[in-house]
């Protein structure tokens, strides 16, 4: 096993003096290879604590670049990193934190084509991604490659944490994500953090707990959160730990396994299908809207976002949130052009389909790109979010 040098003895002394952890535990961390998928909200504390703890090799998978709206919670990055690759910026920060470790970056989107190849050389995976297709992909790849998967997920004030596919000292294998949730929710039901928001400190808490589980698994100290799901509600400060058991119907490793390779996870999560099913609606672009505003022609502008979004920025449209649009037909004019908008154009398209289907409107136009496009092309003074 890897030996520690003099500097490392000094650096890790607070680990070394924990009786059950000791030199043995630290050497195990040094010999370990951990893959972190997602250098974002969860990845920020996770990567920093893993690097600081002296994990010998850390792989970082992230295809994204650092943006302004990340800095509210992704404390790995600063203003100087804006526009840089997250994986690269993370690597620089982490090597500054601990030069005794190795960092490998993968500036790519993890997919069914590359997941097995990327994951196979690591001892375990920590999943800090943000969408269902990737969650199932990582889970399945870990089961197929026999790697533990330390999982955390967050939404608004709520977090979930578990250790999947862990084999204990007696050789008993714990459950995986498919035992807990055999299927993902239909698209649109559970909003992403980009749509639903997340309190900045929550990924800090969950990502730190995730790092703790990684360190426990690698060092062999403590009792891993396998077969249990930890839930944390930051708003009420409620915590619960629930039991998770293996499901005999699990297609990967249940009683009659049917899945022996990675699949198309977009399709599994119903994502490709809905886009095709959605009927196109009539559109105007932001230049058209600007001309309409300047022409003096009578038209109605409706904003289907939420009141708290309206407060951030608005085009002085009439606010009728998507959730109540079906019951608001009387407020919508039939004798003139009606332009409907939201933040990016998705919700307004949905509103138009609803109004057309339920109330037979034929004079509704979706503002392409929503208020974001308007801010970018017509009025840069508007706040964007």
């Amino acid at each position, binding site marked *: 096993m890897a030996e520690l040098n003099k500097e490392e003895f000094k650096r890790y002394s607070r680990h070394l003096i924990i009786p059950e952890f000791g030199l043995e535990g630290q050497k195990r961390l040094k010999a370990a290879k951990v893959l972190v998928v997602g250098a974002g909200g969860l*990845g920020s504390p996770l990567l920093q604590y893993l690097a600081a703890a002296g994990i010998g090799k850390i792989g970082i998978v992230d295809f994204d670049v650092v943006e302004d709206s990340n800095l509210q919670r992704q404390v790995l990055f600063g203003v100087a990193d804006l526009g840089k690759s997250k994986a690269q910026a993370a690597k620089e920060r982490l090597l500054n934190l601990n030069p005794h470790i190795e960092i490998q970056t993968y500036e790519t989107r993890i997919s069914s084509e590359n997941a097995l190849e990327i994951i196979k050389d690591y001892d375990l995976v920590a999943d800090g991604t943000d969408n269902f297709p990737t969650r199932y992909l990582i889970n399945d790849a870990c089961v197929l490659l026999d790697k533990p998967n330390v999982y955390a997920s967050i939404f608004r004030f709520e977090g979930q944490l578990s250790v999947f596919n862990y084999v204990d000292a007696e050789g008993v294998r714990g459950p995986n994500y498919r035992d*807990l949730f055999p*299927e993902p929710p239909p698209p649109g039901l559970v909003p992403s953090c980009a749509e639903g928001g997340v309190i900045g400190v929550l990924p800090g808490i969950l990502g730190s707990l995730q790092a703790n589980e990684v360190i426990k698994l690698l060092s062999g100290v403590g009792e891993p959160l396998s077969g249990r799901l930890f839930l944390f509600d930051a708003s009420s400060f409620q915590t619960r730990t*629930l039991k998770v058991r293996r499901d005999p119907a699990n297609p990967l490793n249940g009683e009659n396994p049917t899945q022996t390779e990675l699949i198309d996870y977009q399709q599994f999560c119903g994502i490709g299908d809905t886009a095709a099913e959605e009927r196109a609606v009539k559109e105007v672009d932001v230049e058209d809207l600007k001309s309409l505003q300047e022409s003096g022609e009578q038209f109605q502008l409706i904003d289907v976002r939420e009141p708290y979004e309206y407060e951030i920025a608005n085009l002085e449209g009439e606010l009728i949130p998507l959730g109540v649009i079906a019951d608001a037909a009387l407020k919508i004019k039939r004798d003139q052009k009606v332009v409907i908008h939201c933040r990016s154009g998705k919700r307004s398209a949905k509103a138009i389909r609803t109004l057309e289907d339920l109330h037979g409107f034929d004079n509704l136009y979706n503002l392409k790109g929503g208020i974001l496009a308007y801010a970018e092309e017509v009025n840069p003074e508007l706040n964007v979010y």
Partner: protein
Amino acid sequence: MATIIIPTPLRKFTDNKSSFDSDGSTVQAALDQLVGEYDTLGKQLLTEDGRLRSFLKVYVGDEDIQQLDGTKTALNSDTVVSIIPAIAGGVQ
């Protein structure tokens, strides 16, 4: 009276209420009361033939009701029923 804890993603269907008190004596009775109070929640929780959707788990205490008596699981006055949805957030 059993308490059902409503997870964040479903609170938009419960007027932002985070819990619901029910005097139902089984999980089914308690869920029926909940759905009776918030009818738009019903479509999110149950399939057309009335079964729980597979991206949701219902727990009584710390145990999945599938390990107990399913929706017939009995509730006591101090039981906590948790509805657990899959959530995926992390990076963005």
